């Protein structure tokens, strides 16, 4: 899931979600970066409306978050 989180960070910081940027984040996190997975992620996101996907998820009542605070 770290690949996805990396994409989400780039989305937040308004940086382009491309292979170099995703890789840089994961490298910084000390992850073993699998190039093919970065590629697959970036390719899959090409036609995705990221704002939309994120906003919809944000709208979901996080109710389940459960436990005490």
């Amino acid at each position, binding site marked *: *899931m770290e*690949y*996805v*989180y990396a*994409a*989400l960070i780039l*989305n937040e910081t308004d940086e382009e979600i491309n292979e170099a940027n995703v890789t840089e984040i994961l490298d910084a996190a000390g992850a073993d970066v699998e190039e093919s*997975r970065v590629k*697959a*992620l970036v390719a*899959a*996101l*090409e*036609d*995705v*409306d*990221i704002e*939309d*996907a*994120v906003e*919809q*998820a*944000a709208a*979901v009542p*996080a109710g*389940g*978050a*459960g*436990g005490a*605070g």
Partner: protein
Amino acid sequence: MSAEGDHQTETVPDWKREEVADLAELIDTYESVGIVSIAGIPSRQLQAMRRDLHGSAELRVARNTLLVRALDDADDGVEELTDEVDGQVGLIGADANPFGLYRELEASKTPAPINAGEVAPNPIEIPEGDTGIDPGPFVGELQQVGAAARIMDGSIQVTEDSTVLEEGEEVSQTLANVLGELEIEPKEVGLDLRSVYADGILFEPDELAIDIDEYRADVEAAAAAGRNLSVNAAYPTAETAGTLLGKGRTEAKSLGLEAAIASPALADDLVSRADAQMRALAANIDDEEALPEELRG
């Protein structure tokens, strides 16, 4: 066909030889070849059925002896079908595979009334509901054949789905009358596939009945499995990339709320969560003195 003619006796008339040749051609032409029962189908209806099949399947009716000869002459084990050549039958060939052919034939069957003295091909049921028939002796007939019937609201009603005859039992005159009165047609008339042969395999009808709904459910399950695996293994595809982002966002939100991380994106949710918790706790307090007015139950 010509080579085969040699070991037949010369007494076979030409018309028979031609008919056998025609049947043999049908057997060669189609992917699936089967024997269908045509018993009890009036010839006009049979003509109509033959027309309806046009394009997807071909039906030939011939003397059984000729059918057997044509089947015997064919290659690859089609001759096993000769076991089914008995009574009023026809030879059918179709481009569809045996399952498709079976479905097509089943779909083309039409309901028909059943007569006294006939054997029920399947359980016969009288469904629950208003018969629309005025009170009268008919209610007694219904009860006599085993239907739960009574007079309600000015008409005869069947109060629950009632099975009035089991499969294989004989239809009585009374039942035939009752079914006729209710316009229930328990028989399905059409070409009855006895056995079908394709690609070296002989299929019996009971293996050919497929439940489309089940296959549709399987397709949905398979698609869901693919989606689940893609998302849960974080292997993004064009279809699931958005979902994965959403999942990441939801996870971050969940963690953020759980840990009360004061991110601007979470501030609203943190406030409402705290408010909800406060109200939930207040709801557990019985003593109104302990609560401000707006929190009292």
